[in-house]
């Protein structure tokens, strides 16, 4: 085996991120403690942009696999990597402000940047590998980085509590995932997704269906931790509350998107292969037909639990945690039909919309809560009088999260909604609609604070430039993508061939 013959070039983005993370950690190590470390963020940002450049350059190319399928570059991975890189770039801009010298809470500022980068590396691996082992390693790189990130406020009680909770529940989730994978490996004797797919079909015919179901459910439960949906969502409120706000934003947007990447990658490539050709109505996907009900139940439960529990929250970050559980439920809806028509563009469109609106909302939350020194929803009171543009921006994000036209969130929801109606999953559509309306109550609760309640102070709210930039990008993205969904849809459909995920080069 000649490793020089492999096309290493396709891994350029990953190498750039790895290199940047290494350089940042070395600089951080050798730099005197009292120096300002904000330039590390700028360096990291440059690395992210460079990686993004290469991802775009490789977009739409024929799928390439190297290292015995350990690494795989295809359209699916490219799309997710673009989401990750955009998110991390915005996050860096946001945190450069947050991690300033005056902020006594976060003393280990350098770590923040390179840990986000290593997490990013894990996420990118999760999106582009065709091997269970590599996917798992990516998952762990992300998890371990984010455990530390959550606890980065070393002397903060909640931060420590949430980091501990996150590690413990994360470890259990990992164990469950691995247990599930071991069943699949046990039946097929391989960790390569394409080999598994081939062998799983015959294993199923030979009566090993119980093992397959076990593997499926265990992996589903374990991986649902990352996307924070039922049944593994209970960690989210505590961890979101305790983590520093930029890290909360990271968990709620990026870590979640990576979770979807790995779930879709494994389930679609592995379980799709079990086809029943004997049926009269043509071939159909046996397992998908049988199991989609369970995913639908998980999605519905997430929407119901997330949206109803959010009603009673008074801490804005806890509220966003429950909201994000519900949002993940919406994103699961297309998966119910497995790779239904438009599956990829529905999921990715919603993730793009979710990225803009949630990051924007967290930027506002960060500015407001830092200013008021409390995370209570009442810290938003009178925001409109203190900074009209911030309030209007937040209104747009909240309307988008609630799914009201003419925002990206509306079209995303509309598009997802279509898939459930298309497959005559009316009850799921009804749950989605009903819980969306329930969500009006708490999203509009924040709006009521901003416009209709007098705040403690009328002083103008100073919005730092980096945060203002992220808010502006969020508004622009939310409104532009909402008004012209073509911007995203065309890019996805013209440059990327998602079905190449199933083709082995």
């Amino acid at each position: 085996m000649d490793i020089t013959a492999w096309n290493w070039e396709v891994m350029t983005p990953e190498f750039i991120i790895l290199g940047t993370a290494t350089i940042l950690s070395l600089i951080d190590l050798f730099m005197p403690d009292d120096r300002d470390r904000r330039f590390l963020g700028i360096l990291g940002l440059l690395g992210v942009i460079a990686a993004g450049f290469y991802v775009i350059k490789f977009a739409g190319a024929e799928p390439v696999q190297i290292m015995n399928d350990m690494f795989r570059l295809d359209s699916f991975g490219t799309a997710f990597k673009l989401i990750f890189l955009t998110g991390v770039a915005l996050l860096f801009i946001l945190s450069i402000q947050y991690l300033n010298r005056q902020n006594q809470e976060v003393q280990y500022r350098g770590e923040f940047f390179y840990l986000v980068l290593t997490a990013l590396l894990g996420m990118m691996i999760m999106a582009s590998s065709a091997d269970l082992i590599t996917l798992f390693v990516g998952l762990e790189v992300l998890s371990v980085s984010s455990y530390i990130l959550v606890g980065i406020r070393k002397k903060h009680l909640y931060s420590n509590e949430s980091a501990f909770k996150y590690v413990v529940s994360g470890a259990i989730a990992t164990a469950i995932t691995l247990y599930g994978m071991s069943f699949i490996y046990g039946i097929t004797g391989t960790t390569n997704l394409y080999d598994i797919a081939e062998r799983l079909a015959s294993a199923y015919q030979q009566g090993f269906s119980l093992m397959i179901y076990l593997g499926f459910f265990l992996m589903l439960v374990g991986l649902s931790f990352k996307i924070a949906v039922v049944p593994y969502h209970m960690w989210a409120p505590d961890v979101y509350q305790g983590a520093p706000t930029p890290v909360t934003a990271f968990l709620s947007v990026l870590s979640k998107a990576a979770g979807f990447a790995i779930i879709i990658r494994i389930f679609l490539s592995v379980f799709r292969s079990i086809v029943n050709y004997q049926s009269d109505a043509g071939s159909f996907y046996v397992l998908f037909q049988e199991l989609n009900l369970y995913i639908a139940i998980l999605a519905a439960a997430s929407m119901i639990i997330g949206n109803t529990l959010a009603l009673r929250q008074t801490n804005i970050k806890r509220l966003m945690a429950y909201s994000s559980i519900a949002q993940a439920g919406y994103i699961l809806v297309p998966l119910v039909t497995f790779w239904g028509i438009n599956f990829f563009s529905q999921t990715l469109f919603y993730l793009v919309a979710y990225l803009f609106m949630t990051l924007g909302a967290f930027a506002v939350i960060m500015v407001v809560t830092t200013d008021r020194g409390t995370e209570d929803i009442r810290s938003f009171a009178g925001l409109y009088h203190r900074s009209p543009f911030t309030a209007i921006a937040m209104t747009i994000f909240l309307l988008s999260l609630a799914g009201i036209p003419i925002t990206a969130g509306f079209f995303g929801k509309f598009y997802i909604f279509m898939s459930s109606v298309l497959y005559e999953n009316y009850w799921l559509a009804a749950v989605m609609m009903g819980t969306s309306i329930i969500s009006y109550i708490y999203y509009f609760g924040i709006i009521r604070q901003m416009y209709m309640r007098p705040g403690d102070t009328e002083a103008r709210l100073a919005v730092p430039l980096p945060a203002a930039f992220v808010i502006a990008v969020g508004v622009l993205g939310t409104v532009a993508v909402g008004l012209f969904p073509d911007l995203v849809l065309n890019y996805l459909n013209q440059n990327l061939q998602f079905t190449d995920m199933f083709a082995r080069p």
Partner: protein
Amino acid sequence: MIEKLLTLILLSPLLGILVLAFTPRYRAGTVKLIGILATLIPLLLSFVMYVQFDLNAEGMQLVHRADWFQIPIQDSVVKIAYEVGVDGLSMPMVLLASVIATLGAVASIAIQKRWKEYFILYLIMEIGLLGVFMSLNLFMFFIFFELALIPMFFLIAIWGYLDREKAAMKFLIYNGVGSGILLITFVALFIKTGSLNMAEIMTRLSDPMSPFNLPDSPYLISEGLRTGLFLALLIAFGIKMPFVPLHTWMLKSYQESPIPMIMISSGVMIKMGAYGLIRLGVGFFPQQAVELAQWIGVLGLVSILYGAVLALVQKDLKMVLAYSSVSHMGIVLLGIASMNATGFQGAIFQMVSHGLVAALLIFMVGVIYERTKTTVISELGGLAKSAPFISGVLLTAALASLGLPGMSGFISEFQAFLGLFRAEPVLAAIGTLGIILTAVYMLRAVLATTFGPTPEKWQDVVDARPVEVIPMAVLLGFVILIGIYPAVLGDVVQGTLQNLVPRIGG
């Protein structure tokens, strides 16, 4: 130029928003003036639209189309276009919306705070109101439907009376549920017929040779599904209209909303429900509508009687009007239930007529409230001496509301009941009871306000100011115009009804 007329009407409030954005917030007078002037542009353009409207043409007129975006679905790509147009059904509604919007803006002079935000939201809402009636596809219809809803939430919640936030939340949730059901229906229609364009869906659903109607076709849309979709539309628009028992949000918002918002709400917004029911409900599913006509009639009847009886015992002038609106929208339902041309014409007349009359009545209540700071009937009284003009107009408006001949209410009620007597004589006979009750509760409320001895405190109530006379005069003018020369509206509606009615076999 003329083909872009509707787009111009639709977007012209944006001009006002833009100017307002650069107006200093503390200059109340300037802000109000700009707000009112901004609503005049769509109003003037709407009159141009009325003049340009061709009475003999079939189908949509003044259509303006542009590509918007496309959704890939299944193997094809569905184009969603920006498309606006009007026909005999929607043209009067656009006109009504722009008239009420201008008068509502004039009534907004009484607004006490945060004028700049008020008028910006007001103008955004106007875009929504106008857009709903102009939309030619379901996607746009829905977007404008919501675009009217959200600013209304803010307008009630910030500028309303004491319990405003609760009223606004109730308004939002009820209408949100309605919109949700509407969206499910629209998506289902889109998935089933593969189109979002209203005219296309109508043809695909009705053409006997289309694959959606052939019994063995895989694309067949079953009777059951059609009935389900029709019922969903009935409920969604029923919340908006609103009919009993979906009306409770309106009572609360009547109580707590600022006066201009009630004008808009009862003058235009609840007409969106009736309009949707006729255009989409009956238009898409004529057969189901005919089958369920009796039940629609019963719903209408319940609304009429329930609204009238409760209006009889209300102590607050505003609540009398709220229940009277429920009652009057019941007449629209009765007109639809008759499923014949006369009945439909009555329903459309009633939509326009009630829009004008309700806006006028609530405006009068606002004028009185501004002077007396109360709308409780027992505390008012004897206003005829101190404010004869106001009292006179109020009485005239009440007469219009109870359907006095020579005013628009008479024409619409007459036609609606005429249509219904042909189809469902029993329902119609009971329904006329509602008309009698209307006379009783309207006169009871209005006479108690204006006649009788004038209490000490109302001795020097100021009579109407010129700026208040304008809305009164304009609204009354329209009411009387339609009353004595119904053709001004009838001719417009006629052409469109000739297309609609044969499909329901009436």
